[in-house]
């Protein structure tokens, strides 16, 4: 009898502590469940009690809890500006205009339609795409050159828009702030003289060389596919691009950073196949913008 009680207590303790050990992933799961069932597209109102945000010296993001929109945009702007310092925009206004139109239309289907979404194609042969907090999305000329139609572009942009919607990079910065606070207990931080936003994001645009965790990438794939489909494109644009990239040798320089910071395309494709299953079979086939896909000028 008493043995039984001990076992019960032990079991209870196990169950009780499980959520604590997994608090992070549990919270993510819950959020995912909630988001999935939430039809309304509303931008959460930025918290008003952040007087320090406007003062450069005191600017820091809260290590836990929501980050005010104003601060998110400020960080995203700094990251975007740094990325453009590494690779400027392709000098083709028609191209930039086209990508902004497709991107803005896809972003309108997201949970954050009211952000000031900014899209661009940057001048590098690398095959990659980037999203910064606040709605900055860039794809490389190298990646654009592998695309075959507007549906594929919508899929790629959908993946990046999903990173912004889920605040993936923002959460990484928030986590590093938290670690930083821990480090400060031991050692007073040395001011490197950068701007406040720059101090939070580290050196240059290095946030893009570290990458996100795999689950964030798989999630962005699943959401990206749906964003493109909601915008009236085929749901198979993103998978099709992944199939193409999968055929590029991993030893090719052009995909070096992409393969380093993302799961292999084959793994992403099999996760997508599991998630998509037959779910999107009833979607009407799309013309994907009726063949108006903008062709790159020869260099």
């Amino acid at each position, binding site marked *: 009898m008493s043995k039984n009680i001990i076992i019960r207590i032990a079991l209870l303790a196990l169950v009780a502590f499980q959520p604590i050990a997994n608090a*992070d*992933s549990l919270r993510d*799961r819950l959020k*995912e469940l909630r988001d*999935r069932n939430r039809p309304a597209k509303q931008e959460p109102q930025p918290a008003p009690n952040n007087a320090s945000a406007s003062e450069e010296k005191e600017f820091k993001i809260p290590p836990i809890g929501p980050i005010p929109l104003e601060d998110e945009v400020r960080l995203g702007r700094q990251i975007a*500006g740094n*990325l453009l*310092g590494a690779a400027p925009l392709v000098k083709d*206004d028609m191209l930039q*205009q086209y990508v*902004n*139109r497709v991107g*803005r*239309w896809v972003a*309108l289907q997201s949970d954050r*339609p009211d952000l*000031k979404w*900014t*899209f661009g194609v940057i001048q590098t*042969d*690398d095959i*990659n795409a980037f999203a910064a907090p606040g709605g*900055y999305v*860039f794809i*490389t000329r190298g990646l654009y050159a592998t695309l075959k139609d*507007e549906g594929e572009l919508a899929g790629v942009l959908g993946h990046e828009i999903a990173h912004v919607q889920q605040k993936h990079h923002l959460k990484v910065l928030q986590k590093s702030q938290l670690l930083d606070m821990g480090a400060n207990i031991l050692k007073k931080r040395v001011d490197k003289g950068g701007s406040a936003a*720059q101090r939070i994001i580290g050196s*240059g*645009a*290095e946030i893009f*060389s570290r990458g996100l965790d795999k689950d964030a990438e798989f999630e962005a794939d*699943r959401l990206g596919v*749906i964003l493109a*489909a909601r*915008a*009236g*494109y*085929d749901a*198979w644009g993103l*998978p099709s691009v992944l*199939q193409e990239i*999968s*055929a*590029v040798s991993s030893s*090719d*320089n*052009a995909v070096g*950073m992409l393969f380093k910071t993302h799961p292999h395309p084959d793994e992403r*494709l099999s*996760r997508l*196949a599991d*998630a*998509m299953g*037959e*779910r*999107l*079979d009833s*979607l009407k*086939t799309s013309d994907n913008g*009726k063949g108006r896909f903008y062709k790159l000028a020869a260099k």
Partner: protein
Amino acid sequence: MTISKWMWITLSGLLWGLAIPTLAQQQGVAVKSDDIKAEPFKDAKTVAALNKGDSVTILKKQGGWMEIKVSQRKGWVRVLSVRKGAGGSNAAAEIAGVAGVATGRAGTGQVVSTTGVRGLGEEDLKSAKFNEEELKKAEAAAIAPDQAKQFAAKGALTARQVNWLPTSKTVASEGR
């Protein structure tokens, strides 16, 4: 400049590597078993079975479906049941290896992206300096929702209700 010349050769080599099998009939391999359908929809008649590992010839794509030929039978399977390249990713890597030959990099294995000769390697990203001018250009190109809606209408694109996809089972069972 020699570097940009090599870049160009790499890129065109790569494009050729991708383009040739697209123009000809492309090879693929079944990554999962699936029904081969007479037409590109779920309720169409099943004409044969596709087995994981089967080599297929890809004839065309239509939405989520792909027309294939496998041992003289033609039919439609789901796009994600087939991976391009004759033997899965290994063979696909061989196809891309054509580009490697063109650049003289064949057989060198993993080329670390930090060489930074071109593109966006680790060092390029880390040492990047804020470019206000380019950022303002980018921001000036941003458009309003109404413009995006007009653009969509011109392309006959209509917004539609589609539910988010569930987390796949494998993801759910994989603890952190």
